[in-house]
């Protein structure tokens, strides 16, 4: 299932509903991505590095379709019995939740790999763009080469 929304989500509630409707799956993996506090977490704190807010723009007509495609691809590659992707858009602040991925499978590795795959493909294919506001001003986040590399390992 796919949900694209402005509102926050509650992992506890989402997990409870997800786990209930797929009681036979022995392994469940959740991933939560949150707004960082620092534009570059590997650099020291400074006003230019501290994030004040981010704004997530997206392409609504495509987002839903693309996430469904990514989800179908995961289902075709791993024996997962359920999956859920929630992605937020709009203005968000450090520590806010951005994205939730849940996968369930009888097999632990399938649940882990499918969740990692969903995140990697989402990061490189789902039409979202982040604009970051720091002490240095507002800038569009550049795509990361390591995200491209991460996505490529699933060929």
């Amino acid at each position: 299932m796919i949900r694209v929304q402005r509102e926050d989500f509650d992992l506890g509630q989402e997990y409870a509903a997800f786990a209930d409707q797929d009681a036979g799956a022995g392994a469940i993996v959740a991933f939560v991505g949150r707004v960082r506090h620092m534009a570059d977490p590997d650099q020291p704190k400074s006003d230019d590095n501290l994030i004040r807010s981010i704004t997530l723009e997206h392409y609504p007509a495509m987002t839903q379709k693309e996430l469904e495609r990514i989800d179908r691809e995961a289902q075709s590659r791993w024996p997962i019995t359920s999956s859920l992707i929630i992605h937020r858009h709009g203005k968000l602040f450090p520590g806010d939740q951005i994205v939730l991925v849940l996968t369930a499978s009888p097999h632990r590795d399938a649940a882990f790999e499918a969740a990692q795959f969903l995140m990697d493909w989402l990061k490189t294919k789902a039409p979202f763009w982040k604009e970051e506001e720091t002490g240095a001003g507002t800038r569009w986040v550049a795509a990361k080469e390591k995200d491209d590399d991460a996505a490529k390992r699933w060929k």
Partner: protein
Amino acid sequence: MKVLYFAWLRQKIGMSEESIDLPAHVSDVAGLLDWLSDRGPEFADALTHRQVIRVAVNQEHVTFDAPIKAGDEIALFPPVTGG
């Protein structure tokens, strides 16, 4: 044909969406980018670095050699950065 612009492409071009009449000689994405670039300095500026332009036709990622036709919804945007 509807053309949509996102993120810094939207900002540089100064609009999020427009309707254009596709000239008869433009038949693929690369041709559309060339034609758009000639429409004014804001287009030329936004579309200079083709390696950071991504394109979707009817909500699907495509490469620059993808064919386009009247009635398509074309979206131009930078590499995505969600998640």
